């Protein structure tokens, strides 16, 4: 049998919370398991006897003050035990006993027992055998605290408040209290007496809640209501004491008090006048308080039941007070709060009350519409009320529109017109929202009755203004007005008749078709003017933005308005490239084309398939225009602008589809996509000339029922078809290639080479178009369509045959290297860019197929072993990129033959050069291997390729071209677009660290002379440059351990080699190291200053070039951009030194540096002068 006395003693002595909990748990278990005949409950209660007043069994003197702490702890022992007791553990008699025991504490033990008793009672009230009558007793006992209550600490008071709230919200107790006290609610009056001076935020939160519960759930008499109202009203407006440490925010407290105000409509006659009175106090009210008052009024209006009696009588009073807050208000928060109140008020009114109210509002506001100062605020008032519900809209909109129209006829200022148009626009937006709202049949009838006010709006209000926007030289103020008007006109097209509710979205339009197309035409006229009209006034851009958006919106609603626009644009484009100025025409085509692409294709209409029709119609027009331009031998710049527009359109439409969250994995119907597209869209298929569309077995698509995912798939195939047509147009077939004698493709005869740059751009644009389409396909879609074939046949699969599989697996690569490849045209000639972007967009699984049939190997070997040295500056980087992609997306190390061939090639170039080799050719070959390595390292190079890495490490040793070999190593680490995850490349997280460890670090050792075999200064420099160019692309932590060595190399390189790309890399690395770890530079300050000053003052010519440096090692004249870049870095480093090092290290150099910086303030480049001034200021402050 447990000794409760012992437990109680242990509890009192325990300091630790966990220990106390364990003891309380033990006691609870003892009570629950103890034999009932031994009455464990009684013994448990008695256990605290020694600490109770008047127990007399301890040896204390009567005079001595009792140990309050110990007593409090003893009582806490009881309450904590209750926490762990089952709810049904106690019998009713025991509960009663405990209630009276703890209740008595409120009367006798003000100093120690209150908190424990309150928490204990909270537990007891929750017990199953708690009797509802005891609730009243407890409240009585609590009230007996009287003046001692405020003296309790806030934690204790909080426990009591929570106890009371718990009692009052327990249904049985609550009904007992109501039954016992009736409407006079004596217990509440006592509680109010007890708590009237509460100030603690946490306690107030509960106290307000108690008051709210009472107001909502009890039905007190008028006197009690007044008493309660008097209690909480005093707290308003409430703020949190600044010193308050509780987690309660001022907003919580305000909200809790607000709930008291809005608890019962019976208080309406007091709350609303009180709150309005507070609001009208004028200057004394801060914004915060004002917002609080407004929110409280709004809560009352929203919550009060029986609005006819609780809200309607105060309508005039509220309107009278509040309208000035908006009319003359300046602070957005209060204006907004007021508008919300007025809106709430409107929603609560009905019938005559609503009519009277709206009449008052209308009367007051429409007069202000004529006053420039108040137009905008009266508009806000009007809109806030009429947008509250359809019936208010019906009552107010007619007079509002009439007055707006009247005023627009005689505007007082440009700003006035703008404000009026803005109000009208918002009214139109409101109508759009309300049309979809639920309404009774009667309301809808009323709503329909005002339709006639909207129909003539275009003619009456917008027409003249919108049409003025397309004139040339519109003044600034008018542009602003037109900007407003176009938005309104756009919203007007979207209006549907009131009775269209429930019908399909596009079935009804309020305006007749003629007006809609008129609006579209006049909006378009502004865009046309913007694209063709030359330079424009300030603000015109904004007008164009708004017009574009408005027209987009209009055509989404009035879908048949789009195709005429396309026809119109087509005409403009045609006339431009046929007769227009060659410089301007491409710009006009691009600008206008992009506008229409955005208007028709950037967002799907409600019936999504209409969007696809728009897209199809537009893309078809553009494609036919492109082919017409090609046929007519228009300038390549024109082709570029057209194909760029096609690409923008495709990108926009893709965005539009993605916004609908389609299933991107939805498979295509089957692989015979080409046939299907030709049959479904014969008109599209006819463009391109070489074949005609055949209306065959495939039925035209039932567009209306397509889901967004189906639309997207259809869109992808259409776009792919467009890409195909353009590709085919750009290529021609060759039966016998000059080098191989085999079938090949070449650039079509459209390409004359007259404007090489634009032709290149065209090739890039069409390839990025097709690449984008392939990129957007999912992996399974790519596999199903055999997208890998597109990359090698360039959509001429009827001519270029694809090998099925490699004939001789083991000797495949060897035989290509020896016999040459039939695929050289694809990787080495002008067409290679067409293949590149498709390869870039393919997933590794599709790339894998190219290795299965052996074509990829052919591409790699012919790409890297190319004997052609006349590679064009455009095609060569493309070849390298192709190699990189193939090496990244497939593990080429697993093809021993390929690796062996590559290694053989590299060995030949690096280790066994013959004197009469063309150095340029050697460099190009090594670049190919680097390009492959760039792809491989991203996904961690397999051990099979170690030999290659070993060769790379030796490359800079070459006496003739070693420096080039070293420099080009940068290719391996420099970032490039095809090697991003976005383009499905395989990129492992620590690849850069691996490259540093395997390649850079060993080279660094050679560069600093740690390799006894390499002591030649020139070779060491070759290595140093290679290291610096690679390190430039790395983050500091990667090379932090070697930072000292790298710093030394960068100083040496910058010192020995004049301004140029090498020095720029050196300065770049130097700066990075100094920024990350300034202390590393401490021993080199002198050299750093010397280097930097000679670089930015451009004195490199005067510094002696070391003897061992051969001529032509660095390009004699570096381009101005590199020079300026070097100068900027040098100035930044110099300017940063005073922050990095203590002045004693710098002062010896100060006068010299300042002199140089002063000169640098006159540098020829503006940006450098700015940097020089900053550096100069930093050095001047040096003390």
């Amino acid at each position, binding site marked *: 049998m447990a000794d409760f006395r012992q437990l109680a003693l242990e509890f009192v002595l325990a300091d630790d919370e966990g220990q106390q909990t364990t003891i309380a748990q033990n006691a609870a278990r003892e009570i629950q398991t103890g034999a009932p005949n031994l009455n464990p409950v009684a013994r448990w209660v008695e256990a605290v006897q020694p600490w109770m007043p008047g127990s007399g069994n301890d040896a204390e003197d009567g005079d001595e003050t009792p140990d309050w702490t110990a007593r409090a702890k003893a009582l806490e022992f009881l309450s904590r035990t209750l926490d762990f007791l089952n709810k049904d553990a106690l019998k009713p008699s025991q509960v009663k006993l405990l209630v009276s025991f703890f209740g008595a504490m409120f009367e006798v033990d003000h100093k120690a027992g209150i908190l424990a008793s309150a928490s204990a009672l909270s537990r007891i009230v929750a017990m199953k055998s708690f009797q509802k009558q005891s609730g009243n007793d407890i409240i009585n006992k609590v009230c007996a605290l009287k003046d001692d209550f405020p003296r309790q600490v806030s934690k204790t008071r909080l426990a009591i408040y929570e106890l009371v709230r718990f009692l009052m919200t327990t249904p049985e107790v609550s009904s007992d209290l109501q039954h016992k006290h009736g409407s006079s609610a004596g217990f509440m009056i006592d509680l109010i007496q007890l708590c009237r001076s509460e100030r603690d935020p946490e306690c107030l939160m509960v106290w307000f809640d108690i008051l709210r519960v009472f107001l909502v759930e009890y039905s007190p008499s008028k006197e009690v209501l007044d008493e309660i109202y008097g209690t909480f009203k005093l707290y308003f407006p409430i703020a949190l004491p600044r010193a308050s440490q509780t987690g309660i925010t001022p907003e919580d407290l305000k909200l809790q008090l607000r709930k008291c105000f809005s608890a019962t409509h019976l208080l309406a006659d007091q709350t609303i006048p009180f709150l309005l009175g507070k609001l009208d106090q004028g200057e004394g009210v801060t914004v915060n308080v004002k917002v609080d008052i407004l929110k409280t009024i709004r809560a009352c209006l929203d919550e009060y039941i029986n609005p006819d009696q609780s809200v309607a009588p105060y309508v005039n009073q509220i309107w009278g007070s509040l309208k000035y807050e908006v009319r003359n208000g300046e602070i957005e928060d209060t204006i907004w709060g007021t508008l919300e109140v007025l809106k709430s008020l409107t929603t609560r009114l009905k019938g005559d009350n609503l009519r009277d109210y709206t009449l008052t509002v209308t009367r007051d506001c429409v007069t202000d519409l004529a006053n420039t100062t108040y137009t905008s605020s009266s508009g806000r008032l009007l809109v806030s009320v009429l947008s509250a519900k359809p019936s208010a809209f019906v009552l107010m909109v007619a007079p509002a529109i009439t007055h707006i129209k009247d005023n627009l006829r005689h505007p007082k200022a440009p700003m006035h017109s703008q404000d009026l148009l803005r109000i009208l626009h918002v009214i139109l937006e409101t109508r759009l929202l309300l049309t979809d709202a639920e309404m009774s049949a009667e309301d809808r009838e009323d709503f329909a009755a005002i339709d006639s006010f909207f129909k003539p709006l275009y003619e009456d209000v917008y027409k003249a203004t919108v049409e003025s926007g397309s004139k040339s030289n519109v003044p600034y103020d008018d542009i602003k007005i037109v900007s407003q008007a176009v938005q309104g006109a756009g919203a007007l097209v979207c209006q549907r008749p009131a009775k269209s509710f429930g019908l399909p979205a596009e079935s009804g339009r309020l305006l007749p078709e003629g007006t809609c197309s008129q609006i579209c035409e006049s909006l378009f006229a502004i865009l046309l003017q913007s694209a063709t009209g030359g330079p424009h006034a300030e603000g015109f851009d904004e007008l164009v933005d708004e017009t574009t958006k408005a027209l987009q919106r209009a055509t989404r609603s009035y879908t048949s308005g789009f195709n005429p626009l396309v026809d119109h644009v087509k005409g403009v484009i045609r006339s431009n490239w046929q007769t227009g100025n060659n410089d301007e025409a491409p710009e006009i085509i691009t600008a206008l084309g992009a506008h229409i692409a955005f208007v028709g294709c950037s967002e799907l209409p409600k019936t999504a398939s209409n969007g696809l029709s728009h897209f199809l119609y537009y893309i078809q027009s553009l494609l036919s225009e492109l082919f017409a331009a090609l046929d007519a031998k228009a300038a390549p710049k024109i082709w570029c602008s057209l194909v760029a527009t096609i690409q923008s359109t495709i990108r926009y439409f893709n965005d539009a589809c993605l916004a609908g969250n389609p299933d991107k994995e939805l498979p295509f119907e089957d692989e015979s996509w080409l046939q299907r597209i030709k049959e479904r869209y014969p008109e599209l298929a006819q463009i391109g000339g070489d074949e005609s569309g055949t209306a065959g077995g495939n039925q035209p698509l039932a567009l209306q029922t397509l889901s967004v995912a189906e639309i997207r798939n259809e869109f992808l195939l259409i776009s792919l078809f467009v890409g195909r047509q353009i590709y085919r147009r750009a290529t021609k077939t060759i039966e016998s290639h000059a080098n191989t004698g085999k079938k090949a493709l070449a650039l079509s005869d459209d390409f004359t080479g007259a404007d090489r*740059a634009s032709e*290149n751009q065209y090739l890039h644009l069409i390839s*990025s178009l097709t690449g984008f389409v392939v990129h957007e396909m999912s992996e399974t879609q790519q596999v199903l369509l055999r997208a890998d074939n597109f990359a090698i046949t360039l959509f001429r699969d009827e001519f270029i045959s694809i090998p099925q599989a490699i004939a001789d697996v083991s000797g495949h690569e060897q035989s290509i290297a020896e016999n040459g490849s039939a695929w050289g045209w694809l990787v080495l000639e002008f067409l290679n860019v067409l293949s590149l972007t498709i390869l870039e967009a393919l997933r590794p699984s599709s790339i894998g197929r190219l290795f299965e049939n052996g074509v990829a190997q052919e591409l790699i070997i012919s790409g890297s072993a190319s004997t052609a040295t006349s590679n064009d500056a455009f095609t060569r980087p493309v070849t390298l990129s192709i190699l990189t992609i193939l090496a990244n997306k497939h593990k080429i190390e697993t093809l021993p033959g390929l690796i062996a061939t590559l290694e053989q090639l590299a060995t030949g170039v690096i280790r066994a050069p013959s004197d009469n080799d063309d150095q340029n050719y050697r460099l190009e070959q090594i670049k190919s291997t680097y390009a492959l390595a760039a792809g491989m390292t991203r996904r961690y190079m397999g051990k099979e390729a170690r030999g290659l890495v070993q060769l790379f490490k030796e490359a800079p040793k070459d006496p003739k071209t070693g420096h080039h070999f070293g420099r080009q190593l940068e290719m391996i680490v420099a970032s490039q677009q095809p090697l991003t995850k976005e383009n499905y490349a395989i990129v492992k997280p620590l690849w850069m660290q691996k490259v540093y460890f395997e390649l850079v670090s060993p080279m660094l050792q050679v560069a600093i002379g740690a390799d006894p075999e390499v002591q030649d200064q020139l070779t060491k420099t070759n290595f140093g440059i290679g290291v610096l160019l690679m390190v430039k692309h790395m983050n500091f932590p990667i090379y932090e351990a070697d930072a000292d060595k790298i710093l030394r190399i960068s100083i040496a390189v910058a010192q020995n080699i004049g301004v140029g790309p090498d020095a720029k890399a050196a300065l770049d690395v130097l700066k990075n190291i100094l920024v990350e770890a300034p202390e590393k530079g401490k021993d080199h300050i002198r050299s750093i200053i010397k280097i930097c000053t000679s670089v930015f003052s451009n004195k490199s010519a005067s510094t002696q070039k070391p003897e061992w440096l051969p001529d032509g090692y660095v390009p004699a004249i570096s381009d101005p951009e590199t020079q300026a870049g070097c100068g900027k870095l040098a100035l930044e480093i110099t300017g940063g030194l005073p922050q990095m090092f203590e002045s004693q290290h710098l002062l010896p150099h100060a006068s010299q540096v300042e002199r140089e910086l002063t000169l640098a303030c006159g540098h020829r480049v503006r940006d450098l002068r700015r940097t020089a001034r900053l550096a100069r200021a930093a050095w001047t402050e040096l003390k």
Partner: protein
Amino acid sequence: MATLDNANPTILSASQLPTRQAKLAPRKGPESRYNDIVFAKPSYLAQPFCGQDAVAWPRTSDWHDEFADEAIDEQEIYDLISTISDPEHPVSLGQLSVINLCDIHITPSPSLGAPEPNTIVQVRVEITPTITHCSLATVIGLGVRVRLEKALPPNYRVDVTCKENSHNQDDQVNKQLGDKERVAAALENDTLKGVLDKMLETCA
């Protein structure tokens, strides 16, 4: 300062001050979302992937040439000194129209290209005090002079004067500002130095 010479000067807002006119950038609207992507120079044509001779590519860096040669022009001088704070008001000299772009003259004209380091370039700045009896005109002039001397290379000679008829005693003020000895002496005065440092604090 017990009373302000001009307690209520006209102050221009930042948007009203002259700024370097950026070369016309292409329109940026909702319809040009993809122009940059579509017309970008392809990444494979960047260094180090392309060869030494860069490939010509149309329509890039037309409007953005960071490292072009540009001589110090009037706007640059204006930018240097218009940010000096007024000794009386917490606003800049540019905002008070004490410094005006049209009152800055450079010979030889910057339109002739960047001058050789040995060519002497004369920079003349005329200040317009906010009122004709401004007692601080000399201090302002001194501030302008100090600022320019700290920011310009040695071959630039600075001459600061009061604009004609903008001050009751403009000849005296001009004399003080033009006298090297007096300027040097003024800079050794700690109080005056403090005022100048305060004025120049706002210059970047």
